[in-house]
């Protein structure tokens, strides 16, 4: 059971780490890049598949050379046998569509075709949730989204999943797809290991991965657009149909207020309080 996990580097939005300028714009240079937090659920789902069914896990990302660190983080924090970085100036400034084309091509270029591709639910910066479904569409694969638990039936060649459907009512839907399939994990995804042998293997892999993550470059492959045989007109900024018209910060409530202490025994003061409150009381 071979799995690929798609991941993206995003600004570390944790309080105390992220840096904004006076106008509320993100200071990219001051804010470190980390693995998109939601992608860790995807990596955990891939690890569960490896533990239960064997096979390798490849982490894949598209981004500048520095994203090698994001892949290392993914390998160290969850698990990865190896990693692929799709990196090229021609790929830069891509929207979700151009990104989907690039990563779908990256997956198809792998020596072995995966049985499962995992992606996290939304990136912390773009928050579109489009790239996964679009990549699945590019590959013409079935896609299961909002997955909270996962079971692979190797004999039947299918993946069964429970998905969390949130709307007016919260529902858990059980779905099935033929392999190969694309799985988008929900932040509520929980891996389950009901056999001791799986927990022991999980422990082995976690120990192993720490060492490998240190030396991730030895198991990292970097592909540019030529390696992928992609026309620069269809990727990166040139291949992106999305135009962002502007970004407006949502105004925050002012953090300062004026307050006056009034002693309840001060009748003049209390009169004034009543006077000031009257307009809000719906009275005359």
């Amino acid at each position, binding site marked *: 059971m071979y799995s690929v996990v798609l991941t993206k580097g995003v600004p570390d939005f944790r309080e105390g780490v992220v840096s904004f300028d006076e106008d509320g714009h993100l200071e990219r240079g001051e804010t470190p890049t980390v693995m998109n937090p939601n992608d860790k659920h995807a990596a955990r789902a891939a690890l569960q598949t490896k533990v239960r069914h064997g096979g390798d896990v490849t982490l894949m990302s598209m981004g500048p050379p520095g994203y090698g660190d994001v892949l290392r983080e993914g390998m160290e924090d969850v698990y990865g046998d190896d990693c692929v970085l799709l990196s090229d100036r021609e790929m830069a400034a891509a929207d979700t569509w151009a990104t989907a084309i690039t990563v779908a091509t990256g997956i198809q270029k792998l020596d072995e075709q995966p049985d499962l591709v995992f992606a996290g639910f939304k990136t912390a910066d773009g928050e579109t949730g489009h790239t996964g479904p679009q990549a699945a569409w590019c590959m013409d694969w079935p896609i299961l989204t909002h997955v909270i638990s996962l079971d692979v039936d190797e004999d039947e060649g299918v993946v069964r999943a429970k998905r969390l459907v949130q709307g007016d009512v919260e529902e858990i839907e059980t779905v099935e797809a033929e392999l190969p399939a694309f799985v988008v994990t929900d932040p509520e995804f929980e891996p389950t*290991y*009901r*056999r*001791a*042998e799986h*927990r*022991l293997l999980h*422990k*082995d892999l976690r120990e192993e991965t720490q060492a490998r993550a240190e030396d991730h470059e030895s198991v990292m492959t970097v592909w540019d657009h030529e390696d992928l045989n992609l026309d620069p007109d269809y990727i990166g900024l040139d291949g992106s149909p999305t135009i962002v018209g502007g970004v407006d910060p949502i105004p925050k409530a002012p953090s300062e207020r004026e307050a006056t202490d009034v002693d309840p025994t001060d009748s003049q003061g209390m009169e004034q309080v009543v006077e000031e409150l009257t307009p809000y009381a719906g009275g005359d």
Partner: protein
Amino acid sequence: MTDDREHYEAVVVGCGPGGAAAAAVLADNGVETLVLERGTEAGSKNVSGGLIYAEESAPYTIDDLYPGFREQASERPITEYHIHNVAGNKVKSYDITDLHDHDTEWSDAVLRRKMDSWLERRVHERTRETGGGVVTGVHVDGLIQEDGEVKGVTCEELDPIEADLVVAADGVNSELAREANLMDWEEPEEWFQGVKAVVDLPEGAVEDRFGIGADEGAAHLFSGDLFEGVRGGGFVYTNEDTLSVGTVFHLDSLVAEEAEPHELLDALLTHPMLAEYFDGEYDELEYSAKLVPDSKKVAHTSPHRGRLVLVGDAAGQMQAQGPIIKGMNHAVTAGALAAEAFVESRARKSRKAEPTAGELYERKLHEEGVMGKLRPKRYEVAAALGERDAVTNLTDRVLESPVGRFGIKAADSLGIIESAYSSPFMSMLMPDTKTPYVTLPTVIGEALGDRVTGENTIEPPALDDRIGDLTYDVGDPHIELLDESYAASGAAVSACPVSAQDFGGGCYRSETVKTNGHEERVVSLDTQPCVECGTCAVVADTDWNHPAGNKGVEYKQG
């Protein structure tokens, strides 16, 4: 379904010293061994006094099984041992290092989180090579029993696992021992309860204040009138840079006196004798509690059933005879002997009529002298006479009379008291009455003691602060109160170490309910602050289970 079940040759439940010893011997003999531990890490659920002994007469010691143990997992070696008889501010102390040294190869103070987590890593390394290993965060909650035979274990977090040997090293509250009907939780007389504070000291203070060197350690025991007449005593053990200060009482006595365990601990902590240890500063790192089986009464003489063997506290293997307090060493020996028995029985499997692993284990416990230490014959004889109320009353009256006091003075001048305290023979004779715990030490303290002049100004934390400082990952309630009447379960309000009368933040609370014109006193339970000691299982009417794996209290010191 059974075809799909996991199977290991041996499943060891609990990764404390008993489980670790069993795992070491099993793994070294190539037995595929799975160790299941309930805590996030071994030690996170464990509390001990704690001194661990290596006895000269024992066939196994922890450092033989786990080289490097003393250098890496323990605190200080205990190089001096004292007992203090307290009467008010008067204290008479005796050096009983000789007693401590008797049959002792070495003895170290330990903190269980550090010790057990160290062991866990070694256990995992060794058992992994056999195809097993240590899995943490798993609550083993029962036995697979088919046709009346034990086939394996059931767990909250894992599917049932079959095994040829199940080692229940799951501690004093062993759910497996109870399910197999080998142990029960009925009589408070069969248990002690201990509470402990781990206290931080500035660097170098242990050496200065106890007058010991860098590689030395001290143990101090306390008995007398400082515990409201409750039968038991206190201790102070030196760790690297902390102290373990605790009190241990007979559970029946705690219940009878309606004493609050945390207050008895405070009585020790604030006694003027301890002033010099704290120097006015008190920084409590952790409050903890534990139930302790009294091996004289409950050490199981045949701790096995089918494929199941009990070791350590789960089998009641905790020796507390006067100043001799040994548990972990017996757990180590028992665990190793159980493993040895399994290996031997497996080798001769082909021949029928051979004893089972359990029967061999039982035989070894007797032959290696473990049972003799846990249930000394001498105690049984002495107890038959000495634990009668009439005898206790008479002895106590004589001791408290001028004649008794004269006798004590005379005995002391002849060195009889010190040598009696130092006698392992005498310790094993000691009856479980007020006399040795309260009356005699008080009389000794009064008649012979020197007045302690130091002023102890420290203020130990209140119970709600102690609970607040503990780390919990609260899961579903794990204890069910079966009878909420005060008559059935009221004793828990005081005896529970994290509850107290007129305290709303504990596990057990006393409430008065008015119904149809009459008032009823009832007990309510909230398991959130539970430290999983098991006291309420004995003194109240409950359905008591451990929390799920990784849930409940997490000790950092232990």
